[in-house]
């Protein structure tokens, strides 16, 4: 089937080339049948790549080690669910996933716009097929997912143990969906400039895709943070890692766009800004893919090789130069139709929010690419760490939270000082009450965290007041009970109230970040069985060691050959809180030089974190057992010299037994962090709000609104 898979890729490349030509010919000559044929090329591309993806997925599920990609990233001992996800852990498979997702989203975008924006859509089709063709060409010429090997190896290397984590199965598709969705507004934005149609219609056509890109990227980033916190043994969820930053940058510019597009829709303003944001977001999405796939910057999240750098740099250069040329050459058409009525208006708040978001993006861009810039200028690679990022992003983040509370209580066009005073009373009261409560509770040592808590309270107050007043207005008009009035209010104003819910979620998330990073208690120490230590208000006692062998009995279900851990008894004020069992998994290695026993456990060891999580605090534990003791090493050495491969597991069992009988001191990483759960909760709230904003209005209501809207506008009967 490998030949068939590769034939699919070649066919996909031909379809891309044809579709680009047909779309451009159609739009330049007015031959609609060619534009239509180009659009169908995208549908065909989606079909072909779906077929190719199914072929590769089947190869993984059936352990077909004739495929290089399967042999390199999967194995029989890799659990079935992780085998399914191993497709995108390989360089080749992830490129196929990218191209496939892009073709599916592009097909959806073109299907939804099939009856409008025909000239813009034709250019957008050519651009989207250009992206598709680029990724398919990478697979055909550089990283063929259907490359095979002879003779067929009896066993594969196995999935990177770090990736054997439930959220890792959906994190890459989410992130890639976000990245690929970012290319759709890019294609339509560039198409609008090429077609010289820069009115609000193209914005309307891609609004949902921009929102979906924001949502998927956000979910992907959160899942990545959850993986980092739950799987990597350092206890953090964000380390300003290059790949983390690469996914955050398009999310930030996308967030800015989602706010400023409303100003263009309503007022015909910020056209240059909006189209620039869209083009920047698309380019940053490709740069994000480039970082994770090229391995050009060191990252725990980078799983690619170093072969794809040059093609990606060429694509990014074309995108940047082309974007700048289009914006500059169309600048006369992009002039604003109106000016700001007042600096005290929602438009101004959105502008300020845009400036902060873009400043954040710039800071992160500079910090992320600083190693490359430094190497280019001085010849020496240097990098900046978390303290550098924190110095700039923390104040900008505080301003952002403040603005997310200001926006909802300011009117469009112009607000008066008297109204502003009245509207800010409740939010300011909430912030002040929080400050007093924190002072009374004795929490006054971390000024930045306290400022964040007060600003978050300001957001809760402002959004809460909006919901209250909106529901009250709805009740006054329709005489409905509170729940129905609230529901009707949100249903009729999904974008507005969905957006407000997102603001709440972001504030909750920031509270979690501020609390967990400022008030964390951490301890890294060596303990022997029976010993205890204190972490914050908690006592941690190392009761006894634990050990399991063979993938079948691996507690974390990740297929490790040997797992060594500890039972930890956690108490607070003498009361039992939890019993935790952190462990370290040892995996098989392909390195035969480690010997028959050594190779069974010689792969990359991976920490399996154990934690007791609640809404108020997380007790997080990780262990790093010492298997380098003389006694344990001797078991491996003797096993290597005496046991054949089929009996080597006996020595591993003996090693586990010896570890249980005479456990050496183990290194523990213990953390007590308040409100970590709020980060995930805030993320969930934001996703919920995003879905409400994204959800289309009921078609019947929309039809009725459209039919009546003209009459309503003339008669002045617009209702809440």
């Amino acid at each position, binding site marked *: 089937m490998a*030949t*068939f898979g590769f*034939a699919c890729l070649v*066919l996909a490349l031909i*379809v891309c080339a044809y*579709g680009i030509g*047909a779309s451009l010919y159609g739009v330049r000559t*007015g*031959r*609609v*049948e*060619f534009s*239509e*044929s180009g659009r*169908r090329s995208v*549908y*065909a591309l989606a*079909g*072909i790549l779906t*077929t190719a993806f199914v072929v590769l997925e089947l190869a993984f599920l059936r352990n077909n080690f004739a495929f290089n990609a399967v042999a390199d990233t999967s194995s029989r001992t890799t659990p079935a669910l992780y085998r399914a996800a191993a497709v995108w852990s390989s360089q080749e498979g992830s490129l196929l996933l990218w191209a496939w997702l892009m073709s599916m989203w592009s097909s959806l975008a073109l299907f939804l716009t*099939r*009856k*409008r*924006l*025909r*000239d813009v859509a034709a250019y957008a089709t050519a651009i989207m097929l250009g992206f598709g063709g680029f990724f398919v060409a990478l697979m055909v010429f550089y990283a063929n997912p259907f490359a095979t090997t002879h003779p067929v190896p009896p066993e594969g290397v196995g999935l990177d143990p770090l990736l054997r984590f439930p959220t890792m199965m959906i994190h890459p598709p989410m992130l890639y969906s976000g990245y690929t969705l970012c290319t759709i507004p890019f294609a339509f934005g560039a198409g609008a400039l090429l077609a010289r*149609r820069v*009115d*609000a*219609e193209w914005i*309307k056509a891609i609004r949902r895709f921009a929102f979906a890109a924001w949502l998927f990227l956000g979910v992907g980033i959160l899942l990545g943070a959850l993986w980092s916190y739950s799987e990597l043994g350092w206890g953090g969820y964000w380390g300003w890692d290059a790949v983390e930053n690469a996914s955050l940058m398009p999310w930030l510019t996308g967030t800015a766009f989602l706010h400023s597009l409303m100003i263009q*829709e*309503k007022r*015909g303003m910020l056209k240059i800004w909006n189209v620039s944001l869209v083009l920047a977001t698309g380019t940053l999405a490709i740069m994000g893919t480039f970082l994770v796939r090229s391995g050009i910057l060191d990252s725990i999240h980078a799983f690619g090789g170093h072969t794809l750098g040059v093609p990606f740099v060429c694509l990014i250069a074309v995108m940047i130069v082309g974007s700048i040329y289009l914006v500059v050459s169309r600048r006369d058409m992009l002039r604003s139709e109106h000016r700001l009525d007042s600096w005290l208006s929602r438009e101004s708040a959105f502008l300020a929010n845009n400036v902060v978001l873009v400043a954040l993006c710039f800071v992160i861009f500079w910090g992320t690419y600083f190693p490359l810039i430094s190497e280019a200028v001085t010849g020496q690679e240097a990098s900046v760490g978390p303290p550098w990022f924190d110095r700039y992003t923390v104040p900008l983040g505080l301003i952002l939270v403040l603005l997310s509370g200001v926006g909802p*209580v*300011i*009117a*469009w*066009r*112009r*607000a*008066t000082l008297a*109204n502003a005073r009245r*509207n800010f009373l409740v939010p300011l009261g909430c912030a002040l009450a929080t400050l007093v409560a924190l002072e009374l509770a004795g929490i006054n040592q971390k000024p930045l965290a306290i400022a964040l808590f007060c600003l978050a309270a300001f957001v809760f107050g402002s959004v809460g007041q*909006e919901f209250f*007043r*909106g529901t009250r*207005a709805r009740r006054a008009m329709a005489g409905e009970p509170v729940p129905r009035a609230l529901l009707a209010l949100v249903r009729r*104003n999904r974008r*507005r109230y969905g957006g407000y819910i997102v603001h709440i979620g972001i504030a909750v998330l920031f509270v979690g970040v501020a609390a967990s990073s400022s008030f964390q208690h951490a301890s890294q120490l060596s303990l022997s069985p029976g010993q205890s230590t204190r972490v914050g208000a908690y006592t941690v006692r190392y009761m006894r060691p634990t050990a399991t062998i063979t993938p079948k009995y691996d507690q974390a279900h990740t297929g490790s050959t040997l797992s060594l851990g500890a039972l930890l008894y956690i108490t607070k004020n003498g009361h039992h809180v939890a019993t935790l069992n952190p462990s370290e998994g040892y995996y098989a290695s392909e390195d035969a030089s480690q010997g028959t026993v050594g190779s069974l456990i010689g792969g990359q060891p991976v920490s399996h974190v154990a934690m007791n999580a609640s809404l108020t605090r997380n007790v997080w534990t990780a262990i790093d057992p010492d298997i380098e003791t003389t006694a344990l090493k001797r078991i491996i050495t003797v096993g290597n010299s005496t046991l054949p491969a089929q009996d080597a597991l006996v020595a591993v069992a003996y090693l586990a037994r010896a570890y249980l009988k005479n456990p050496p001191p183990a290194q523990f990483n213990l953390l007590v962090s308040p409100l970590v759960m709020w980060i995930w909760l805030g993320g969930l709230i934001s996703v919920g709000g995003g879905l409400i904003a994204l959800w289309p209005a009921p078609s019947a209501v929309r039809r009725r*609104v459209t039919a009546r*809207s*003209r009459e*309503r*506008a*003339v008669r*002045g009967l*617009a*209702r*809440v």
Partner: protein
Amino acid sequence: MGFLIAILTLLLVGLVVALVSAPLRRARELDPPIPKDVAGSDSQQPPLAPDSRLRDELEAAREAKYREIRDAELDFRTGKLSSEDYRAIDADLRAEAIEILNRLERLRTRDA
């Protein structure tokens, strides 16, 4: 196996060619010229005329203006606008909406 793969590949190529070339074949069957009464499907629509493009733009502007009117009223009802400001903004917005509607009407009349 090799034979099966060849059949599968040919089948896929056939499907792709049929899908992608359908608009071209249809246009050739109808060519020349495309009768106006069968120009309903996507592939048979004539190139976008400037009037049609202007109508699309005005319709988008109309929808945005309606949304703006609704938003202004919601701002007023939730206490973000004083009644004087609201009246002034609402009157401006309605005047702008009526201007858009008039332009659309003129286009329709010209088309008819």
